[in-house]
């Protein structure tokens, strides 16, 4: 049982990081970034090439993944989302654009990286062993511990940034009411760009972290996006605390499910539970009625 909790904690920490990125973009632009999972996948590939292939240190490769995805995010926002948001009569169009970018990224990755599953050598070797493994003890490998630790570190850093800095306050203001923020002198356009960049960078960081445990392939995007949707719906879309709680919940649910149930039944139950939950709480745990 302890092992399940340890696994859940590691998964939950990374999932929270993924959900935070998606919820950040949603809160600012009211757009669900369908390409979030594909951005995660690109982050994984950046780390795979820089760290796994070219032998650069992980401490260089991981920030590189974040920066690369931030650039992708800024470009997507500037060339794809802003024109659609400015011109479209129906909200559906921005959603379709999001789906289109997801398709584009996934197929670019397939064309350039192929379908093969890639992995990287472990960053650190060894493991913590708690108690007797054969009797309710648990193993926490150093790579898993590192991933969980870094995820929690990034989440804390992001929360501090949003809470205490000027651009962070601008982000919160735009999320609450873009018009009012503009009237107060906030540069809404720059803030939106920043929000999208941070959201994309978080996806890249998560991908860069998890590639060290699970490896990466071009097709994981939709799967990750779906998980991210579950997390932000359960937590409440556009709410920071909701994303963190949603991520932790999904992490533990997955860890418990994989321990007790055969393969894909876990996600079947998670989906059913989520749908039932949303019937009673349509806005999630902490959500606002966005409509």
């Amino acid at each position: 049982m302890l092992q399940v909790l340890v696994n859940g904690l590691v998964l939950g920490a990374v999932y929270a990081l993924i959900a935070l990125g998606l919820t950040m973009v949603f809160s600012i632009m009211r757009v669900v970034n369908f390409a979030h999972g594909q951005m995660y996948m690109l982050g994984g590939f950046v780390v795979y090439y820089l760290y796994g292939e070219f032998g650069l240190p992980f401490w260089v490769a991981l920030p590189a993944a974040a920066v690369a995805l931030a650039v992708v995010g800024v470009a997507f926002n500037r060339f794809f989302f802003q024109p659609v948001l400015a011109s479209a009569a129906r909200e559906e169009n921005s959603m379709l654009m999001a789906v289109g970018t997801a398709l584009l990224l996934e197929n670019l990755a397939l064309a350039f990286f192929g379908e093969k599953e890639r992995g990287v050598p472990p960053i650190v070797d060894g493991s913590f062993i708690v108690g007797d493994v054969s009797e309710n003890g648990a193993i926490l490998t150093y790579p898993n511990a590192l991933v969980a630790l870094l995820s929690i570190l990034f989440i804390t850093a992001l929360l501090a940034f949003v809470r205490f800095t000027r651009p962070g306050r601008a982000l919160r203001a735009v999320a609450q009411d873009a018009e009012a923020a503009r009237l107060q002198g906030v540069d809404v356009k720059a803030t939106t760009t920043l929000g999208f960049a941070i959201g994309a960078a978080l996806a890249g960081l998560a991908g860069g972290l998890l590639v060290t445990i699970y490896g990466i392939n071009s097709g994981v995007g939709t799967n990750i996006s779906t998980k991210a949707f579950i997390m932000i719906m359960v937590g409440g879309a556009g709410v920071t605390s909701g994303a963190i709680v949603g991520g932790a919940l999904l992490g533990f649910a997955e860890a418990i499910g994989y321990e007790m149930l055969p393969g894909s039944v876990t996600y079947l139950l998670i989906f059913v539970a989520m749908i039932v939950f949303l019937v009673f709480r349509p806005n999630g745990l902490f959500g606002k009625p966005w409509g």
Partner: protein
Amino acid sequence: MRTLKTRDAAVAVAMLALLAVAPVAIGGSRYMLSVLMNCAGLSLVAAGVWITFTIGRINICQAGFALIGAYTTAILMARYGVSYWIALPASALVAAALGALIGSFILKLRGIYFSMLTICLTEAIRLAFLNGGDFTQGSRGITGLQQPFATDSALPMYYLAVALLAVGLVVTWRVHDSRVGRIFHAMRLNEALAESFGTDVWRYRVVAFGIACALGGLGGSYFAVFTQSVYPQSFTVEHSIYYMLYCFLGGLDYVSGAMVGAFALTILFELLSRFQQYQTLVYGVMMIAVILLLPNGVMAIRAAARPSRA
């Protein structure tokens, strides 16, 4: 508005007429026939998505209901030896009943929430069939289904597809261009306002979703005998997204929109098959270009200058 409607009807009738005479024009080419059959089946399924658009919901679970229809047909035929002509309407009914049941709970969600939830629903339905044990035969799927016609020719199946598409169009048209259609329109524009005028919003939403799912089930049932097999992978989230794209591309204000989009994209896809591995990439690029350049769909070209409705 009048001209748009006329154009809409003209396009729908012209396409059906073209489909009816197409076999003469393309001769005996099985490949071309199967492309058109594919298009017709996809249009039918996408018409359901189009109907959910008219009540202001972005439906990304149509593939799930197509899968339900396909499995209903496959299980009835392979397990119980039921004739296809009973299995076909039964599939539509099962999909409609399940759709109405699920819809009566989830339709109170709106916008992005509804879309994300329906994506998860597609996955859930796929996983349910994957874990159905002996009944659904898991990932092995159900194969070797009998085609309903005893001949070697593809023509009967082709005309079945065209007939089903015609039925789908008539249903969509009747729903859209009637009192019910105007209620749907009012609900899309402002649900609370429609309710305050005495519309039983909940009931009409469920009706719309049920009809949409029935069309999905009908299409799924057709594909099950067309390909003579069904697997949990036959209809996935990706397919759901494609159906949605067909509607967008064709135009959300036109009954024939789903059909125009399905034919355009599917035939395009076949033409692009020369590019081999890059075909879906080109497809993705085109999709983004279409949204940037044709935000209201192909059917709206040149209509933009005229006053459009609502």
